[in-house]
């Protein structure tokens, strides 16, 4: 440049970060009541709120054969009558103290949780005691909640996203595996549930020894322990029996299946296979690997399908962490006429992940994201309560959350390649697409190397 120019204004230069401030996951304390019920308490004083979560070892994976859906139904029924109050009255009690309680069961636990103003904690916990210790399971409400679940399943048939998820699970797991059917049960299994089955499940699983109470917020450890002892100290019950059931058996072959939705403007695409159990030693490597593959907005799959090709509004991948091997799933919704091209790109990205190391840039994007975002994940009392519940459910090391960021930063590009080679299985991919068979069956068949199966939304095979 010659001479001088006067720069009146222009873009300011890219800044550099200042020194990070320290962050610690909230300290928590454990207590055990004489009857075996456990407490986890994290005093957090920021706002006058307390979140409580009761975690009960009563999830869908401990249901007996033939009772699929009983865990979810039992948990929901806790709110429909207890200690002589009917469901409407119970709801009213919670809502009048400014809270609403959630009770549900997923694969690994039943949880009863709420967030309440700290001054209302004793009232709220007394109501939780009633639900957990003295549910009535009224016949009428058993019938109603069964009907609502059946209505939900009916809705699912017309809802492409939920339908794709459900059909994907069915395709990934062996028909005998519990994970093949929805956690809430299928229409046939739900219809077969009765009040007695619910009562039996409750009696067997809801015990002080299989229950942990998590408190997070403006409450001291002693106060929480005092309240728990007062309300749950005389709850008696033996240790729940262990259920041996195959939950995650999965075929090791490829499959491509179209769930027919004629004239669909988009295809809901699911690609993946059974993943790995939460306590697998490769948890961190696999988490970082997935972040690069499809876990972040700036992941390979999203940048490819969305930003390079404009095929979709978004494309993501995830390992769903359960006690047993939950699914690894890539999901996207693409315009029908590019379904084949989009699936090809997905398969290509899986191959690329397994064949060469990722760049250092990609590694640090993933690790610095997971490291940096950690405190943002735990801004709320309910998010901290969920994290502590997971500690309980998966029996994670006591320092898991303290060590999380260090463990993430320690992952190398070699680790990621090894995780991809061990835990991504192109030879077992199950490709499930909800879409218009007239448009997508042929291109999918070409990719699969064989004709695809076509099924109706309720899973019945369409004769070829």
């Amino acid at each position, binding site marked *: 440049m010659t001479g001088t120019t006067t720069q009146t204004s*222009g*873009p300011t*230069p*890219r*800044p550099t*970060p200042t*020194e*990070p*401030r*320290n*962050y610690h996951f909230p300290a928590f304390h454990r207590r055990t009541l004489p009857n075996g019920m456990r407490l986890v308490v994290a005093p957090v004083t*920021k*706002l*006058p*709120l307390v979140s409580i979560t009761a975690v009960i070892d009563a999830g869908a994976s401990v249901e007996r054969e033939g009772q699929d859906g009983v865990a979810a139904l039992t948990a929901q029924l806790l709110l429909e009558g207890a200690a002589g109050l009917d*469901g*409407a009255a119970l709801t009213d009690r*919670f*809502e*009048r103290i400014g*809270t*609403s309680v959630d009770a549900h069961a997923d694969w690994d636990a039943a949880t009863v949780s709420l*967030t309440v*103003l700290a001054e209302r904690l004793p009232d709220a916990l007394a109501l939780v005691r009633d639900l957990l210790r003295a549910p009535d399971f009224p016949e009428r409400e058993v019938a*109603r909640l069964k*009907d609502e679940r059946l*209505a939900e399943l*009916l*809705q699912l*048939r*017309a809802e492409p996203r939920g339908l794709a998820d459900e059909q994907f699970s069915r395709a990934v797991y062996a028909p005998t595996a519990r994970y093949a059917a929805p956690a809430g049960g299928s229409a046939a299994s739900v219809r077969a549930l009765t009040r007695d089955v619910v009562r039996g499940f409750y009696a067997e699983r809801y015990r002080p020894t299989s229950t942990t109470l998590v408190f997070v917020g403006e409450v001291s450890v002693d106060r929480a322990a005092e309240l728990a002892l007062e309300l749950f100290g005389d709850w008696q019950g033996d240790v729940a029996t262990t259920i041996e059931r195959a939950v995650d058996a999965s075929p090791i072959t490829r499959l491509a299946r179209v769930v027919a*939705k*004629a*004239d669909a*403007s*988009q295809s809901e695409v699911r690609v993946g296979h059974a993943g790995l159990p939460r306590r697998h030693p490769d948890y961190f490597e696999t988490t970082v690997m997935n972040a690069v593959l499809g876990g972040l*907005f*700036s992941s390979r799959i999203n940048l490819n399908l969305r*930003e390079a*090709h*404009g095929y*979709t*509004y978004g494309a993501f991948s995830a390992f769903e962490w359960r006690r047993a091997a939950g699914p690894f799933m890539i999901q996207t*919704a*693409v*315009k029908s006429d590019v379904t084949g091209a989009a699936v090809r790109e997905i398969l290509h990205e899986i191959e690329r992940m397994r064949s060469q190391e990722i760049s250092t840039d990609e590694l640090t*994007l993933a690790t*610095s994201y997971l490291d*940096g*975002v950690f405190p*943002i994940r*735990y801004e709320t*009392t*309910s998010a901290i309560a969920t994290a502590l519940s997971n500690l309980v459910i998966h029996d994670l090391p006591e320092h898991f959350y303290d060590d999380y960021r260090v463990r993430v930063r320690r992952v190398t590009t070699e680790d990621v390649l090894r995780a991809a080679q061990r835990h991504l299985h192109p030879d077992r991919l199950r490709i499930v697409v909800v879409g218009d*068979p*007239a448009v997508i*069956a042929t291109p999918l068949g070409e990719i699969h190397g064989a004709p695809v199966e*076509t099924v109706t939304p309720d899973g019945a095979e*369409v*004769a070829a």
Partner: protein
Amino acid sequence: MQIPIDTFTLDNGLFVTLSEDHTAPIVAVNLWYHVGSANERAGRTGFAHLFEHMLFQGSASVGANEHFELVQRAGGTLNGSTWLDRTNYYETVPSNQLELALWLEANRMGYLLPAMTQQKLDTQRDVVQNERRWSMDNQPYGSWWERLPALCFPQSHPFHHSLIGSMSDLDAASLEDIEQFFTTYYTPDNAVLSIAGDFDRAEARRLVERHFGPIPRGAGKPPLPDMTLPPTLGGPLREVVPDDVVLPRLFLAFRSPVFGSDDYYAASVCGAILGLKKGSRLHRRLVRERQIAAEAQSFTYDLTKGSDLLVLDVTARPESSSEELERAVNEEVDRLRDEGVAAEEVARAVTLIETELIVALQSAGDRADKLSLFATYFGDPSLVNTQAARYREVTPERVNAFARARLGTDNRASLLYVPRDTETTSANQELAEVGAR
């Protein structure tokens, strides 16, 4: 619950609100532009939202795809959203990365256009058209997003047309449109910047002045047409939509007092009595007792000009017909209007809403967004601290006065989704044919 609030205005008109909280080393940056789909010109429905996508495509000093990458690499979360009357952009980052977030927002506010290309526009047009398919066209009931405002606001009103836009209007969007929209609306004097979380006030001010200070003020935006509307719809409106759905679902909407007005809070409490959580009337009566509905809820749009909308959203059980559903919901509305509400119902609603207001203050991102909201609509972010009190002032008399004025049959718009039986049958036939081939 009161949060601390400071404000200042730059010479170029950018209004800034700050709220410190050092609980965690996190800071949220939140920018509202006072422009939304209401500002779109004829033939360009969906443009405000498409434009929002373009703001993530880089700017003078930021490469394509780099905006997301820089924030994520910093350990932050980010997004943007478009509404009828505003567009927002936000990131929550570790507090030592505050300047990065401010720099990114300033760089695109000041220097977006050099980065705009036809190819980026074409790709984002595809992405948005796919977003439309995903959220509306291929989703049961999805079209309610554009049908309900179209039903409740007259043709000429800025809230009438589709926010996501028609495919053909999206196709028509050009780089010239981008330039014009940017120059007109994306100016510091048409924006509010909020920062909440772990920062030093003096330092934050210095950084804001440094990065946003040099950006010139805009030339002013064209005024919106008159938004004023009569308080009621002037008669019952009804639209029946056959759709690929299994269960009938009713959206019953009422014109209601604009967000921020005294009567808004009575309307909001009335909505909560009807449809907030399981203790609400619709859930109690229609889901639990009569078992006509599978789900029931209510919500408001929170619009500040013309008219707000209060909406009841009820899905039928498989055994109930759409007629039964519609009749049952209208009966509940009639009953509330004719017989009024009880003091305990008001107390339940207000207590629940109060807890929700406090819970919503837990995250820095939510705090910053609320500050921007009140600053954008009312020029006063401290209104965030008055919301609970305004709800507490609501009495049964005020709810009843609202109900008498606004829940009559002259102010009901029914958008009723019904299963498209004939279509389903033909789809099944088609399926059988596919199988036969």
